[in-house]
């Protein structure tokens, strides 16, 4: 565990029966950091979260929080907050009582409780609704109550499991800003789970990309977006044209292909975003299979000897018809080298 680690997961392993959901997970998180777990469905994001919260007991490994080993500490003594995807509000209690729930268990004085609950409800903008029951609130409002309910406990770590997935697009952006504001104001260490790369890129200080219970890459949004470590991460952050490198050549369905420029020797693969593919010039040829208009850009799917290639150009440029033959190039300067393939 490094000096600066506030929450540290060492070799964390969890299995359900014979199947391993999280495999030797190692991660150090600094105090006040906002970390996103990003990965496809079933990769173990929720499982990891629930074990940090203490709702699941790890099969092996260690969890250290603020200098204390909490691997065997029961969930109600960890002071870890969790905002559930379903919000999990208490339907029989008002907004006020939901937020006060944890404080009442602490045997605090009524005046202290009232001060903290009132401030907590105010900070998520729900003062006018504090007498309502959860069923009388919209999804976004319920989400805010869940957030306030966890935050008034002043948790050491706040975990959020897909906090925005039940909200519509506009509310999602609004709640993103809200989460960021709460995090900046309180300085709470936050981990949130998402399978939306845009959400992870825009919110997180650091992103952990997960795949089948393993960490695929850890890095800042810029690192993940620009320098994906593996073909999996590349694919996940929008590099649609991914090739393995063998003997200094691209491995393609049509055989090994050499590029004009000399290839980096140490990379296991190369990946291009659709915007990195140069159209109408270059040594390769492809047939237009489909064209889609996405606003500023037009995306072409080409059938080529290198396999399917996705390219993107400004929508203002003249349109190529279906079936047209197009020249294209894969310029090395637009490629992201991959350390691992598959």
């Amino acid at each position, binding site marked *: 565990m490094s000096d600066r680690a506030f929450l540290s997961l060492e070799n964390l392993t969890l299995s359900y029966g014979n199947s391993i959901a999280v495999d030797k997970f190692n991660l150090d998180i600094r105090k006040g950091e906002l970390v996103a777990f990003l990965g496809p469905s079933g990769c173990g994001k929720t499982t990891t979260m629930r074990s940090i919260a203490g709702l699941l007991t790890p099969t092996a490994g260690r969890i250290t929080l603020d200098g204390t080993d909490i691997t065997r500490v029961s969930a*109600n003594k960890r002071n870890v907050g*969790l905002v559930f995807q*379903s919000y*999990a*509000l208490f*339907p029989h209690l008002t907004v006020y009582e939901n937020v006060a*729930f944890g404080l009442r*268990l602490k045997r605090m004085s009524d005046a202290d409780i009232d001060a903290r609950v009132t401030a907590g409800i105010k900070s998520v903008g729900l003062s006018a609704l504090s007498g309502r029951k959860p069923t009388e609130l919209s999804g976004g409002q319920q989400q805010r109550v869940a957030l306030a309910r966890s935050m008034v406990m002043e948790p050491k770590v706040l975990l959020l499991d897909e906090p925005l997935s039940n909200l519509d697009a506009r509310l999602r952006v609004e709640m993103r800003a809200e989460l960021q504001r709460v995090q900046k104001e309180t300085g709470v260490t936050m981990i949130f789970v998402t399978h939306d790369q845009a959400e992870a890129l825009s919110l997180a200080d650091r992103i952990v990309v997960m795949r089948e219970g393993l960490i695929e890459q850890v890095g800042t949004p810029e690192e993940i977006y620009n320098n994906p470590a593996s073909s999996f991460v590349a694919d996940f952050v929008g590099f649609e044209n991914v090739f393995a490198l063998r003997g200094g050549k691209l491995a393609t369905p049509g055989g090994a292909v050499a590029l004009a420029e000399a290839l980096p020797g140490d990379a296991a693969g190369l990946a291009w975003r659709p915007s990195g593919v140069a159209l109408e010039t270059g040594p390769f040829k492809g047939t237009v299979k489909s064209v889609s208009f996405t606003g500023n850009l037009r995306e072409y799917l080409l059938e080529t000897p290198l396999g399917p290639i996705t390219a993107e150009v400004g929508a203002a440029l003249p349109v190529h018809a279906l079936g047209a033959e197009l020249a294209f190039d894969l310029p090395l300067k637009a490629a992201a080298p991959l350390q691992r393939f598959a």
Partner: protein
Amino acid sequence: MNRTLSTLILAALLVFLIGPFLIIVGASLSAGDTLAFPPQGLSLKWIAKVFTVESFRDSFIMSMILAVGGTFVALLLGVPAAYALSRYKLPFGEIVNTIVTLPIIVPGIIVGLALLRYLVVPFSFSIGVALFLAHTALVLPYTVRVVSSSFNNLRSDMEEAAVLLGATRLGAFFKVVLPNIQSGILAAFILGFVTSFNQVPVSLFLSGPGVRTLPIDMLSYMETTYDPSVAALSALLALMSIGIVFLAERFLGFSRYV
């Protein structure tokens, strides 16, 4: 044509469901001395007589004790059982689930005979205790089933939220789970109460001097006396049931549970 048919079926259904009740009420208002429908003249004298028959009063109290007490004990056992069955993957959970529903299939007359033959006779259990045990056991499956459905409708993440806010598992159960299944428990109580109160076959075997439930008492009363007071008592009991179910539906939406 289709409409006429469905109206006809509905009418037939109502006649079969409500007809007996109307006949009982009619017979109980009779001024004559024998159980008869249509009534011979109108009077309230048989209804008044119900309250003067001492055995009716005693057996009514007995039935009430069994129905209220037995259902209460069944709930004490059934609520935790239902909770465990719905929340945990128990090693024999499926089997327990099946066993719990079995008595609903096994005829009560066999249950009664078995209890008499293997509990009361060999261990000289008092009939009262055996009767209480029998009613508790009979009602238990209903409470487990009705309360289970409440638990299954209640998401388990609510309890986890409570635990993460500092509650113990037990605390979470009392503070978060129980308040949200109150109406399910009340529904189970009413169903259990009615089941126990109307129970005949089991009680038939388990009755003795001074220990007799109301339905059994009514049967034996009718063997000796054929006056309309049994009809009057039945009408009063039916009214009581209707009242309970009406209140339950009004305040709980009882029909959701049964």
